[in-house]
């Protein structure tokens, strides 16, 4: 049985924990660097990415997390988690914010606007089968540019053009929306499959 760590600094980590357990894997909350040992995969949940970055810095988690991602360990970021995994972000607070990096994309924070513009919709995701999948976007970011090594899994209508809402690169998965707020387990199943069969990363 694989063990999935959920970064539990702030945000919707309990929801991810419940979904991982429903799929029969073990889930543990991660708040300190030493808790990264013995994990097979890591989920960085939704929440406020600035808060997570600041708390991670204060408890010396930033470098261990960077090393974790760099070493090719399976990692999934949802919403705020996707922002943290991005190599580049725009629309940050004054003075910028702490990013982990590792995912060769440019993310626009709060691309879709404020809460009044938060929305749910149905996405077509070929990697997850025929049936459309419900997706909840909360003050969501979008990927506005992605490197050649990044596989686009889903797009969504943005301001005048489609933007990227889900990607995979090596053992990194990133979604701009929140599968943990729905009852559909397919995204979590996809991540667990990535954890069970990680690709070799140079």
């Amino acid at each position, binding site marked *: 049985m694989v063990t999935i760590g959920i970064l*539990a*600094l*702030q*945000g*919707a*980590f*309990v*929801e991810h924990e*419940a979904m991982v357990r429903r799929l029969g894997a073990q889930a543990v909350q991660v*708040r300190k660097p030493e808790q990264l040992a013995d994990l097979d995969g890591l989920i960085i949940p*939704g*929440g*406020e990415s*600035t*808060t997570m970055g*600041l*708390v991670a810095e*204060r408890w010396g988690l930033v470098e261990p997390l960077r090393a974790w991602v760099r070493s090719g360990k399976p990692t999934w970021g949802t*919403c*705020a988690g996707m922002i943290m995994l991005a190599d580049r972000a725009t*629309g*940050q*607070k*004054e*003075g910028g914010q702490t990013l982990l990096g590792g995912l060769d994309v440019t993310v626009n*924070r*709060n691309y879709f606007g*404020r*809460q*009044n*513009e*938060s*929305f*749910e*919709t*149905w996405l077509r995701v070929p990697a997850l089968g025929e049936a459309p999948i419900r997706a*909840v976007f*909360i*003050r969501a970011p979008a990927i506005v540019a992605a490197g050649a090594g990044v596989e686009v899994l889903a797009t969504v*209508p943005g301001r005048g053009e489609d933007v990227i809402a889900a990607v995979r690169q090596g053992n990194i998965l990133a979604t701009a929306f*929140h599968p943990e*707020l*729905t*009852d559909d387990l397919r995204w979590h199943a996809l991540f667990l499959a990535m954890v069970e069969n990680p690709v070799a990363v140079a």
Partner: protein
Amino acid sequence: MNEASKLPVNGTHSNNDIITGSFAVKVGLAQMLKGGVIMDVVTAEQARIAEEAGACAVMALERVPADIRKDGGVARMSDPRMIKEIIEAVTIPVMAKARIGHMVEAQILQALGVDYVDESEVLTPADEEHHINKHKFTVPFVCGARDLGEALRRIMEGAAMIRTKGEAGTGNIVEAVRHARTVNGAIRQVQNMDEDELFAFAKELRAPYALVKLTAELGRLPVVNFAAGGVATPADAALMMQLGVDGVFVGSGIFKSDNPEKRARAIVMAVTHYNDAQILAEISEDLGEPMVGINIDTLGDAERMAARGW
């Protein structure tokens, strides 16, 4: 745990199956705020300090509750210009307060683009019988509650997030503890009831049966539940987290203290590490003077904000 999926969805449908303002979307933002601290701020400068300290959202208002208490008079929605300046100043969500029952203040706040409206007893109530019909809005609402019945009545009216009322502006945690314990106790009671008893208990709570039953099934409130009212120290925040709330509002406690930056940061850390006494000891050190507290017993009935709301 999927709190939103079992509750009524009343969204606005538009083209391309993009649905805004649904209950799932409203509850969703509250879920993202969990494990975080929402701080009262009265200027853009304070909002930046709060963001820098790790606040997961700020509450924009003209006067913190301690000053509302001191000044007396009618407390109303804040000046839209100030709210706009705060929205401009930070990237984190911005909340603002409307008076109980004042749907026009709430409409104005929605038009300004605030991310959450707090229908708050800290302001002077505008309606002594009716709360705002929150289903009619795209913007989500948070409401205060002292007990399970009050919480479920607010959820019935469309609140997507609940907080304890506490006694705002006192720096005294006792009322927030009372409200959290009262809600928790009632939830444990309903979990042990059969259907016949639930019917009778719902009547006693003055709450809709369906929501009482849902609460019993979930073993918690059907929406995110924060602590508010009287949080002044990291230990206060951790206490509320150990009592089972999902996060903490801090009103006067930060910017009425000696060293707001340091205290704000410490309270943020306390909410993440609420179960780690070693870390709590470390971050509680040398924070300077907290806000001056008020003993609730010395407040007259008219000064008790928690009693507002029905």
